[in-house]
């Protein structure tokens, strides 16, 4: 990877940690009332920045190897991530049927954070599965 680009990812990593630290300090000290409503957004954004930049910083200098095996592993991982995503969507759309069994689903059904969390579940499950399949070797 280019040295200049790598420095950019380091900068993003530091910024992510700084944002997380600021959020934690604000939570401990109380913070402004308007700030506390959006605090979960800041936590999600800072964790996203930290994880993404950590992945790019720890990548080898030659970049990711895109041979046949890696492509196969990525596609296999995305199949399972798709199934996980579809499972989440089925649970959410069928939340009325599960009333009484799991009230958490009903609470999550119309929450403003639900689409963001579902998208994060899809993306991170894809990343974890791709990491697993690439490390496992035989696909």
């Amino acid at each position, binding site marked *: 990877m280019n040295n200049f680009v790598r420095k950019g990812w380091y900068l993003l990593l530091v910024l992510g940690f700084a944002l997380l630290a600021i959020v934690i300090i604000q939570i401990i000290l109380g913070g402004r009332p308007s700030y506390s409503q959006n605090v979960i957004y800041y936590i999600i954004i800072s964790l996203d920045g930290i994880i993404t930049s950590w992945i790019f910083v720890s990548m080898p200098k030659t970049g990711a190897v895109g041979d046949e095996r890696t492509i196969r592993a990525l596609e296999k991982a995305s*199949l399972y991530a*798709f199934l996980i*995503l579809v499972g989440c*969507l089925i649970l959410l759309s069928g939340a009325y049927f599960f009333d009484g069994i799991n009230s958490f689903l009903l609470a999550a059904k119309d929450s403003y954070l639900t689409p963001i969390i579902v998208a994060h579940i899809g993306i991170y499950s894809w990343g974890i599965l791709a990491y697993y399949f690439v490390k496992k070797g035989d696909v």
Partner: protein
Amino acid sequence: MKNQEIEKSKDFWIFVKACIGIILVGIATILFNQPVIGINIVSTGTLMIVFAALFGKMHYFQDARSRRIREKAGYNAYVATLITIFLLLAFGNVLPLIKNATYSSVTAFIFFVGLFCFLMVSLYYNKKGDVE
């Protein structure tokens, strides 16, 4: 593969038993005073039989090629689902049809987009032949 070979194979009969089991569970659910869920389960079993009749050879036998087709289709459907979610996140408040809709009423739509895309892309790769 010929139809006689399909009928002789073990996978075919496991599939038939699974379909009949799903339909029986649906009927039992209707009898236990849950008609909506029961009708849904019965229609799922019926749809499985219809799809198996339409794309039979593709779905019964999992050789290397059909596995590869499924992975490629899963990749495309995954990307399509995520793009749909992000588009709705970005422009959901602006679009006139879904401006006042809650997320729960849109989830079923996203789910069907993903499944439809998966089905169509797998059909396309199956017809195309060469998957590498």
